[in-house]
């Protein structure tokens, strides 16, 4: 069976969950080959997890290069040439989209971006969910070895062991025309789940009224083991940091449960959350558009309703 290249996303010696999703998706197209690009000594920390999640082969491309994202592009481009894979799968993160786009330009491949599913058979095709889930589009590749970025969280991981045979890959020298990394500071995640991966999200809007009062949103979130989100109005008013903004110019989330507190439900906010399985809204204004997409809505003051809900949740947890 033909190979499918999977670029491994790793941080501090650990494989990111999105990579396991890629390995699962890759199996529907062929035999997954994981590609590890990193500093010397990286692969040995990752191999076991990659094999346990279905990597038949692990390409080890270790290098001291400090040019930004270019080693990944160079290594994948070389492997596309030598391994003729059915497809190349990369996570649809900011870095992943760039790596994939540059690779597609170099290998003359179709670039299927931010897909939620892939299918093999007669050529490779992919499913896109666009405009915040308002449209579902199917696209097919017209080229060999399409480069596909998969949206994190779109595919459920099904771990199946693979052989995990390691193969060393030579990393070419830097061309000298890349950007150099001076320093990096990874985002330190708090105790709450990551916004785009969380199964429950509690978001606050302008109706929360102040940064201090966001404690009400956080309190309910913590009772539910949820991530906290915010509308742009809440972010712009300085109530909550930008990285938590949900919507067209923020994160797209699709949790099992989304609770909107003091959010009116503008189209740009909806674009980031309307594919949530269940939506609950609390808003003082009975006419707020958020109620149009809420499975259950309470017309009322969030400062009354949210703490009461938090108590009920705590009670049930015992």
């Amino acid at each position, binding site marked *: 069976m033909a190979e499918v290249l999977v670029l491994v996303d790793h941080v501090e010696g650990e494989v990111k969950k999105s990579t396991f999703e890629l390995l699962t998706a890759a199996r529907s197209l062929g035999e997954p080959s994981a590609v590890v690009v990193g500093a010397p000594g990286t692969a040995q920390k990752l191999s076991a997890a990659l094999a346990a999640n279905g990597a038949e082969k692990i390409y080890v491309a270790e290098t001291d290069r400090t040019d930004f994202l270019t080693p990944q592009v160079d290594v994948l481009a070389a492997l596309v040439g030598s391994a003729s894979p059915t497809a190349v799968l990369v996570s649809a993160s900011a870095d992943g989209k760039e790596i994939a786009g*540059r690779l597609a330009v170099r290998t003359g491949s179709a670039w299927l971006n931010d897909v939620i599913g892939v299918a093999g058979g007669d050529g490779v095709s992919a499913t896109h969910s666009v405009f915040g889930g308002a449209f579902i589009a199917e696209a097919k590749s017209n080229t060999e070895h399409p480069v596909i970025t998969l949206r994190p969280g779109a595919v459920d991981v099904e771990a199946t062991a693979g052989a995990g045979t390691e193969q060393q890959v030579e990393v070419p020298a830097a061309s000298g025309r890349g950007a150099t990394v001076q320093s990096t500071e990874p985002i330190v995640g708090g105790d709450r789940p990551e916004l785009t991966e969380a199964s429950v999200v509690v978001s606050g809007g302008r109706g929360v009224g102040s940064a201090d009062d966001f404690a009400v949103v956080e309190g309910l979130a913590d009772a539910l083991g949820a991530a906290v989100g915010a509308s742009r109005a809440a972010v712009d008013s300085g109530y909550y940091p930008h990285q938590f903004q949900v919507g067209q110019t923020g994160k797209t989330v699709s949790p099992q449960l989304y609770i909107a507190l003091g959010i009116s439900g503008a189209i740009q906010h909806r674009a980031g959350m309307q594919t949530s399985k269940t939506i609950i809204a609390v808003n003082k204004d009975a006419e707020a558009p958020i109620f*149009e997409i809420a499975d259950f809505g309470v017309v009322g003051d969030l400062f009354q309703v949210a703490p009461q809900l938090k*108590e*009920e949740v705590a009670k049930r947890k015992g």
Partner: protein
Amino acid sequence: MNIVVLVKQVPDTYSERKLDASDGRLDRDATDAVLDEINERAVEAALQIKEANGGSEVTVVTMGPDRATEAIRKALSMGADKAVHLTDGALAGSDAVSTAKALAKVIGTVDGFDLVLAGNEASDGRGGATPAMVADLLGVPALTHAREITVDGSSVTVRRETDDGVTVLTAELPAVVSVGEKINEPRYPSFKGIMAAKKKPVTTLSLADAGIDAGEVGSAGALSSVTSAQPKPPKSAGEKVIDEGDGGQKIAAFLVSQKLI
């Protein structure tokens, strides 16, 4: 310093966006079109660099239908000096790879560019890779998702901010830099700026003018094709109750009934 800014006209996000069911393309007639907000920020960043570096010139480049001239006018009225508009019927249906190829060709027609500025992600396609693809084609570094840009003589340093963290990147010019949402607040065009924009030069290029092979772009050159596009049935409203002191309990009961808690 010669600065090129890549700008894209996009459907106004205040109106509803649609995909055409027949070809899966964005239905651009269904919506009002505006200069993408992120590109206003890219223009602002260019103007600030120009103001700090005497003798600089800012050229706006766009690929899009005829009516993209409105987006060009907006950028010129903010203070950009001139514009190049690549427009050709054969471009319709271009995918990201061919868009990047065409843009790289057009940038090549701008004399001795030092810096190409772009948005990190367009609000319609949301591909988020065009700037990096263009950089790869031009053989120059890509410094993307900039929160801060510092140009110092012949080098550029960018504070790159994404979900995964902050990275400080540096490169020699020429380079491509894409800006993130937090880079700046774009200026409003002044009345004087709007009047002046009417006299600023706009070069319109066809594919042939730009030396681009029509077979490499548009539907003809598409590396992927949309085979179907369906609107998802909109979510309908569920139950709505008025809080009578038991709103929180009612939500809890609903969540229990749905097995969510």
